[in-house]
């Protein structure tokens, strides 16, 4: 049966595997929002504030890490014909470890003490490790759109390096090892995480998903082929130069990468404008806001704006918004897909499966986008008008709460229909 890999539906993981990642993630964004609402402007004084470090890791690992891992487990069999081996075991372990890790690490960084810090970091690192190894196996076997695969492979490599550097920093904080100028190592950790893992993943997903979802023209071929490896090599060179103290080389290569992402964002906005599907759906609104945030972050870097501004634009503008938008499409589609298979297996054709429009309310998804946008604008403004920090935190928490409620709604509909379809014996459908 060679060459039939990607055609089998059995390869899609059971729906509860990605769903538990998606339903846990918003809790961490809510926590980050509440932390900001509680601590107020002090959290935003600098990126070294314990609250800022905690909020960053709540979003980066708890929210973004969970959604991305869940989505990759789901996506690889479909787009690359490459199922992740032992997906249920890998999914369960990754989900538990990342959840505990993100909570422990954030609490530790916020002032919970060294034990929580290293246990949290250890659990998160172990979670990513448990995830990255089977993912690498799947990615090596994968076939399909070369542009996407290249970006996913480089992103996975960047994730591994981010985690390794993170562990090194924890060891430094604990006094187990010493490095000269540890702030430079922090910069490198952040660069691998934000530009490498998050950035390249966004690029890989955009290349695959924008033409597919909205019938836009494809990304230019040189961008599909060269962008991801160039960024990967660039971050490698820049971070080595940065750590070795060759500031000029480091700055200029980081500058080139920033320029590259700026170009990517502009191309993406242009492709979105040339799409054939006219609907301005909430997912598209989130793409739009995220790409504008990316442009803003690049400009902020070029004009030497405070790092907190760049962090806010990348973490909240791109990192919180874009995944929320993607979930508005992913979870309803998966739900429909799995229900349909249950229906085929049970032969209950008297029941009509709810289509995507009735699984998740587009109106409420727009409300979610509005709240997210309000949070982003308030957060950016609060860097100059500190009194806006608390409202920004509340808006961020509310936006993620609406996201969570919408996702729970989809999951409940799934359960209701799955129960109805269970009344006849099921044989051939995917396990759920």
């Amino acid at each position, binding site marked *: 049966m060679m*060459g039939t890999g990607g*055609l089998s*539906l059995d390869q899609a993981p059971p729906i509860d595997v990605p769903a538990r990642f998606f339903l846990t993630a918003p809790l961490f964004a809510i926590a980050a929002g509440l932390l900001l609402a509680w601590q107020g402007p002090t959290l935003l004084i600098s990126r070294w504030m314990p609250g800022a470090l905690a909020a960053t890791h709540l979003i980066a690992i708890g929210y973004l890490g969970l959604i991305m891992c869940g989505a990759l487990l789901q996506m690889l069999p479909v*787009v690359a014909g490459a199922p992740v081996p032992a997906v249920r075991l890998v999914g369960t372990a990754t989900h538990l470890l990342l959840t505990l890790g993100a909570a422990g690490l954030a609490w530790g960084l916020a002032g919970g003490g060294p034990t929580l810090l290293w246990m949290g970091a250890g659990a998160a690192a172990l979670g990513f490790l448990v995830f990255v190894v089977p993912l690498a196996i799947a990615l090596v076997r994968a076939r399909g759109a070369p542009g996407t695969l290249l970006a996913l492979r480089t992103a996975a490599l960047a994730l591994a390096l981010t985690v390794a550097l993170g562990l090194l920093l924890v060891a430094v904080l604990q006094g187990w090892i010493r490095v000269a100028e540890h702030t430079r190592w922090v910069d490198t950790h952040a660069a691998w995480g934000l530009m490498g893992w998050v950035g390249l993943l966004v690029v890989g997903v955009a290349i695959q998903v924008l033409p597919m979802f909205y019938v836009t023209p494809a990304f230019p071929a040189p961008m599909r082929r060269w962008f991801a490896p160039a960024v990967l090599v660039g971050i490698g060179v820049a971070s080595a130069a940065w750590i070795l103290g060759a500031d000029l080389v480091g700055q200029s290569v980081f500058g080139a990468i920033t320029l590259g992402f700026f170009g990517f964002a502009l191309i993406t906005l242009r492709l979105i404008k040339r799409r054939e599907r*006219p609907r301005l759906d909430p997912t598209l609104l989130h793409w739009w806001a995220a790409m504008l945030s990316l442009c803003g972050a690049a400009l902020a870097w070029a004009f030497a704006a405070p790092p907190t501004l760049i962090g806010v634009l990348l973490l909240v503008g791109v990192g919180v918004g874009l995944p929320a938008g993607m979930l508005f499409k992913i979870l309803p589609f998966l739900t429909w897909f799995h229900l349909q298979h249950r229906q*085929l297996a049970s032969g209950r054709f008297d029941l009509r499966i709810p*289509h*995507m429009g009735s699984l998740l309310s587009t109106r409420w998804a727009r409300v979610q986008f509005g709240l997210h946008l309000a949070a982003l604008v308030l957060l950016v403004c609060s860097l100059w008008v500190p009194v806006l920090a608390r409202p920004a935190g509340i808006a961020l928490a509310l936006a993620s709460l609406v996201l969570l409620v919408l996702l729970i709604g989809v999951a409940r509909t799934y359960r209701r229909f799955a129960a109805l379809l269970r009344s006849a014996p099921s044989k051939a459908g995917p396990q759920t």
Partner: protein
Amino acid sequence: MTDSIATYMTDDHQRCDHLLAACERAISNGNWTRLAEQATEFSKALIDHFDMEEQILFPELVAVSPWASGPTGMMTMEHGQMRSLVEEFSEAVGAQDADACLGILETLHLLIQQHNSKEEGILYPMAEENLADQTPDILTRLQAA
């Protein structure tokens, strides 16, 4: 005209994508007469495409490489899912229910996309390889269908 099965079939996929997008444009303009026409054209294009595969391409492929019956069977099952969504869509067009139309088209669109990426990535290249000798003959029949 192309001399490649994969290109011919892929172009037809894209034609269907454009027709689905045209339906959505008619909905967003609130033009129900236009939508009814667009919906008919889109449904016909999609169903014709399934028929070409099920009646010509898949049987030819299975005849030269019997193990292809697994993947082609899977594709045929997905055609069934899409056929029933097409039916649901034409009911929603008849009922002039814009929300239902958009929700069904969204579902159909995503289903079509992931189905097409499997066909274009795996099945068509497989057909090209295994049916090389008969390509001109099969293309003539596909074009006539």
